[in-house]
Each structure stands twice: as structure tokens, then as C-alpha cells.
């Protein structure tokens, strides 16, 4: 049975290398965003934690901040550790890339970049993966409520075929009324501009 690796033990391993790089909150190990790659490398190489397998890498938009979630697995010791990193900058969230630590982070980081707009510094090939370059906005962010350009029945044509079908200029995205199931934003949520540029 796969056991959960003790977050406190992991914190000690990380902080032994770089003090203050991690903390434990509610049984979850949080890493400082600047040193995520180094901390996880320490966890991978340490004999005790032995977290050699990146099981999952994804992000969650918590409206005030992004949470990048890593599930690290040790195959031989058969334990799993959930690691998180918080990013508060919604305009240009940046995180060091894990590709140097795990080759398996390659496509998962591209996916997160594509759908959340989180840049991974040091990623050798950070491009959009599912959506095309120039797609306006990042769909898995909570402030992305509707496809820009409104959905029209019957597919009048492809955007590149005529001006009429083209995607609208960013900023003119019509906002849809809230659905009961939509998460109700609390407080002052920072809503990012959909800047459809294909940067990076």
C-alpha cells in the first residue's frame, strides 16, 4: 500500500539544503516558488525520501493565487508526497521548470502553461500545447468564463477565412452571467486581462 510521506520529514530534508525553502501547512509541504526545482531535486536525490517519479503536475486557480501541485512518488519505498507552490502574481506567474529534475515534467508543464498561463523558467520548449499560439486567454483560469467571440451555431467558417469570423480584439470579451455552479468570487478578485499575445 502506498503510504503518504511525512511532510515534516520532507521539510527537514529540504530545509537542510536551503533553509527556509519550505514549510508545512495542514499536512502539505509548501515550497518557496523561487527554489522549487532545487528543493524537489533534493527530495529526489535524498536516500530517505527517494522521490524519483513525478506522478502528477498540475495547477489550481484559487482566484487570489495559483497553486502548482506536484505529486512525487517513490517507487522502491512506495510512498507519495504532495508538494505545492503558491504563486500570487496573476499577471505573470513564473516558476522554475522541473524539466531538469524530471524529464516527465516536460509535457505536463507545457499543459499547465497552455491552460493556466504559468511560465516555467528553464523549460526547453515552452509553447502552447492543446491550443494554438495566439489563443486569447488561458481557459482553466477561473476568470475565463466564455470562449471569446461568442459561440455561433453552424460554424460559419474558420477564423482565418474572413474578418467576420476572426477572433475579436482582446479586451472585448463579453462576460457571461454567473452560473449557480460557478464559484462565487469573494472579496476583491484580481481579474487578469486576456492578453492574447503568444509570448515566450
Amino acid at each position, binding site marked *: 500500500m502506498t503510504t503518504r510521506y511525512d511532510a515534516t520529514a520532507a521539510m527537514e530534508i529540504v530545509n537542510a539544503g536551503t533553509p527556509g525553502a519550505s514549510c508545512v501547512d495542514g499536512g502539505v509541504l509548501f515550497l518557496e516558488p523561487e527554489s522549487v526545482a532545487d528543493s524537489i531535486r533534493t527530495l529526489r536525490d535524498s536516500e530517505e525520501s527517494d522521490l*524519483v517519479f513525478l506522478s502528477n503536475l498540475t495547477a489550481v486557480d484559487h482566484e487570489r493565487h495559483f497553486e502548482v501541485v506536484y505529486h512525487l512518488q517513490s*517507487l*522502491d*519505498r512506495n510512498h507519495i508526497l504532495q508538494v505545492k507552490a503558491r504563486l500570487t502574481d496573476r499577471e505573470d506567474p513564473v516558476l522554475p521548470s522541473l524539466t531538469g529534475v524530471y524529464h516527465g515534467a516536460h509535457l505536463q508543464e507545457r499543459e499547465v502553461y497552455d491552460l493556466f498561463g504559468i511560465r516555467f523558467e528553464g523549460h526547453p520548449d515552452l509553447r502552447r500545447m492543446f491550443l494554438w499560439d495566439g489563443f486569447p486567454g488561458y481557459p482553466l483560469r477561473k476568470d475565463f468564463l466564455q470562449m471569446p467571440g461568442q459561440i455561433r451555431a453552424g460554424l460559419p467558417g474558420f477564423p482565418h477565412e474572413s474578418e467576420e469570423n476572426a477572433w475579436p480584439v482582446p479586451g472585448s470579451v463579453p462576460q457571461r452571467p454567473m452560473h449557480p455552479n460557478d464559484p462565487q468570487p469573494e472579496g476583491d478578485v484580481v481579474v487578469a486581462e486576456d492578453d492574447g499575445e503568444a509570448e515566450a
Partner: protein
Amino acid sequence: MTDLAGLSSVFGAWYDFRDLNNLQRLITEWIAEWGPDWLASIVTGVLGALGILAVVGPTLLILIWVERKVISRFQQRYGPNRVGPKGLLQPVADAVKLILKEQLAPRAADKLIFFLPPVLIFVPGILIWGVLPFGPRMSVADLNVGVLFLLAVSGTAVLVIFMAGWSSNNKYALFGAMRAVAMSISYEVPMVLALLTLVVFSGTMSINGIVEWQQQEDVIFILLFPLSAIAFFFAASAELNRTPADISEAESEIVAGYHTEYSGMRFGLFYAVELGNTLVVSGFIATFFLGGWWLWGLDQWVPSWIILLAKTAAVYFLLIWTRGTLPRLRIDQLMSFCWKALVPATLLFVVVAFVERTLILSEGWDTTVALPIMAVFNIALTLGAIMLFARVARPAPLRRPARIRMAGADIGGLRAARDVASRREEPQLQVGGD
């Protein structure tokens, strides 16, 4: 005007077209009585060509049905069974569909060269039929260099394929064409050498002469030179683009190879010629190695063309069988098989044929005794050569067996992997290896 009573001797029985050449001779003589020589040649030539076309056209339609039906039986399904009785009209429906389809040409294609190949590919495909002997005097052109004609004409098809692949301006087509050229040129060598064995041994380059030699000596060449037969069969299936050597139109790699960009009836023509070539090559394999229209005296009772068709059908079935069963070889594997296995082996048998022929001629050996001995010797030599090849030419990765072990209680990562690998017990599954 010759007497019409002679016609009854021309047609021995209603089904027996054995003496068609008599009819042809009658017509020639009749024209020669009043007309110029060239007219006789033209008339007989046109008649022969019409005869070939009349045979080939319907045969292609039936072959499409046969191929699909047989393949589907190999694959545990019914195959075409909706159009007509037993799906027999399916090829007609296919042809109608292909004719009605829009014929697309890529904008960037080299138009003239793009339009020509579907037509040109028919030329060698039909010409080859001219030298196939359906009976002792039943071939359109009984050339005394028939073997040479066959090889020369079949070699031109690759030019048409290259035209198709180049002019399509498509990378898949170009890859297919380049592969086809490389493969055809390579496989022509063992093909020529395999036929050279027969030519050396029988002392004639006439295709009918080779059949008559087999009839005279009461032996079929596959018994005398089995390796040449196998080499010719494989080389022919490579020239025909059929699995295991269909790399020039390898579906899973380059979509349809050189005819990727052809649609509608243009594609249909390529397809039809491919099937027709398969049949005619089966016919030639039957002629060269299985005795053609002759079958130990049975040809006295059964029309020769029926015997040839039966043998052709058997070879054709074998071709469908290999196609339905085997995966495809890679291009480098095909090339190395050709140059490292087939060419030396067929060369060896040219030498063997030369030596044996010399023994018969100069030592005056009685062929009824010598031929069986030589057959046994050659079969043993063939088996030896195949076993030697299997042992020596095996690529390195194949020499070790592939093993599957059971992890048992070792579940985990790299450390567990080392534990599993170091266990001494027998692997669960072990396949391949020397």
C-alpha cells in the same frame, strides 16, 4: 480461301483453344493470298492484343473480388457479400464509384507527368501478357528471347512509378517512389539470376522452350532449383509491392506511397494494374518453375490453359496468403536481404546449373538418372544455404531471446528491477534467439 472443313480440325473441342495459332496461321495465309505482308502482321497482332485485353479486363474485375474475399476469409470475416450474388458485383460497384469520383490533382503537381503514369503503367502490365504461353502454340508472341523481353518490360514499370511519385509533389509519394526505385533495381538482380539458372540449364531463352524442356525431361524446375524458385517468388513479391515487401506503398508509414495523390479512377488504374501484375507474375512463376501448361501428360486430356490457370491460381493464393499473414520488412532489412542473401544464393545456383549442364552435355550423362540425383543434391544445397543464412545473417538484437519475467513480490522502482533481473529462475516467457 481455305476450306471451311478445316475449321473442325482447328477447334478440336469447343472449349479447347489450344490450336488458336492454327487459326492465326489460317488467317495469315488467307491474307497473304491477296494482300501485302504487313497487313497480315497487323491483323494478327491486333487480334492477339484484343484477345489479351478480353482476358485481362474481366480477370482484373474478378481478381478484385477474389483478393478481397480470400483476404477476408483469412481475417475471419465475410468480405464483400452485398452487391450481387456472393458479392460478385462488388468490383463493378467499386469501378463505378471510382469513375464517378472527382479526380483531384495537387495544385503544385507537375501536371503532364502527373496525368501520364496511370495510363503508362498499363503498358508493361499488358505487354507482359504477350509472352505468357497458355499452350504449346498459344501465346501472342513466342519470342526466342522471351525471358529477356519479360525482364526488360517489367523493368520499365519502375520508371512510371517514379514519374507518379515525383510529379505528385508530395513527400509521401516521393518517399514511396524512391523506395520503389531502390527496391526494384535491387530485386531485379536476384530475379535475373534466378531466371538465368533456368536459361543456362535448359539452354533456351524462349519461355515456351523452357516449358517444353520441362515437358521433355519430365521434371519441373522447382524440384531442380528450389532456391531459385524461392528467390524468384520473393523478388517478384517485392517487385509487385506486396507484403512483406510493400515498402513503397507502406500504408502505416507513408500512407499510400507513390499513388497517395491519385484519386478516382486514376487510383483505380494503379490498383488494377497491381492486381493484374500479381496474376501475370503468378502465371510466370507457374510457367518457369511449375511446368506451365504441362502436367505429366494431363495436358493431353485437359486444355493446357486450364492447367496453367490452375497453377497460376495456386501461386496467386500463396501470394495472398503471405500478404494476409506477414508484417512488413523495413527498407534496410529488405535491401540487406536482397544483396546479402538472395544475390549470393542465386549466383551460387547459376554456377551449380552451369556445372550440372556441362556434366550432362560433355559427359553425356543420361538425364533420367542424372536429373533426380541433381534434384536431391540441389534441394540439400538449398536447405543448407537457408540454414546457413538463418544462422549467419541474423541481426544482433535478434540473437538474444526476448524474455518476460514475473515480478513476484518485487514491486517497486529501479532497485526492484535489478532484483527481478538478477533472479536465476526461468523466465515466464522466452521467444526468439539463436
